[in-house]
């Protein structure tokens, strides 16, 4: 019993440290985004139809069976405008192998038409207006910011959703993995 006090004191610091470390670790782990519940069915998105720059209604379902990269963008979004020429290059390079980019603009028709012509866009630009932002929210864009991209594999499963620009390396990896 005479030794118990110093011993207790000796254990106090590491003991408290242990409890704090464990608590921090458990807390941090609980804060992790929950692991993706595997590939999600893209059927609701593939069921969407929107007008293109010519005013023709286009259904996303027509591109079922291709590696479909749906990019929500707007002319008021500089990072969106910056990544699109890279998408156009990838479309030109891999389009005949089954890669299909589709842009959904959270924007107005005339602005979309002008920008598409400016950069010589070679994939469909659909005009979604502000409703497209709500659509992107249902796909995981809780911040309602742009660009937001959804990748659907050939079987119709969502394999990636990303807020913020895609890198060329990411596009290359998607092509390598899913085409």
């Amino acid at each position: 019993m005479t030794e118990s006090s110093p011993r207790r004191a000796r254990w106090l610091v590491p003991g408290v440290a242990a409890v704090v470390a464990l608590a921090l670790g458990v807390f941090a782990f609980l804060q992790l985004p929950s692991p993706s519940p595997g590939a999600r069915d893209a059927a609701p998105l593939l069921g969407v139809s929107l007008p293109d720059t010519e005013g023709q209604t286009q259904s996303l379902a027509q591109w079922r069976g291709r590696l479909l990269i749906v990019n929500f963008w707007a002319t008021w979004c500089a990072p969106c405008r910056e990544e699109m020429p890279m998408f156009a290059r990838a479309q030109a390079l891999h389009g005949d192998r089954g890669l299909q980019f589709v842009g959904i603009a959270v924007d107005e028709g005339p602005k979309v038409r002008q920008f598409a012509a400016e950069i010589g866009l070679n994939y469909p630009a659909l005009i979604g207006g502000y409703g497209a932002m709500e659509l992107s929210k249902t796909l995981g864009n809780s911040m309602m910011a742009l660009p937001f991209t959804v990748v659907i594999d050939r079987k119709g499963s969502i394999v990636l959703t990303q807020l913020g620009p895609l890198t060329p390396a990411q596009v290359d990896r998607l092509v390598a993995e899913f085409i």
Partner: protein
Amino acid sequence: MPRCSAFVTCLAALVGAAGLGLYVGAADAQLKLLPAEDAFRFSARALDSRTVEASFAIADGYYLYREKLAFSTPTPGAALGPVSLPSGKVKEDRFFGRVETYRGRVVVPLAVENAAPGLEVTLRADSQGCADAGVCYPPNAQSITLTLPQPGGPPGPLIDATPPRKRWFN
């Protein structure tokens, strides 16, 4: 027992470190962002019977476009005088050319015309901004209703468009 204690300590520390490591790694990959109303906090106060002061507190790593910032009032009978926005930082945009942006804090005094003292005036701010992380938020409209003080009276309180939410860890 001391060995046991040391072992438990080490184990707990390891678990803790691993958890934190995972958390930090995941946060990087997930692009942590603020919702627009927290990234661009709009507030205003009535300075005197004919002037209100609008301000935006912009979070670090975020910016607002000067040319997209506009103020108006839907209050019948009231009108804003000519708005003079402070100059921003010039940025060359590949597509939009020369644009000016605001970071940190922007304060804009606004003259309210034809408004009677004691009148409740609604001030509307239209703004649009982006995060350095590489995303932009859509154009946003926020409103604050202020009561104009009597001539010679004290300025009104600062009113936030979005009262700050209690956040524990971010």
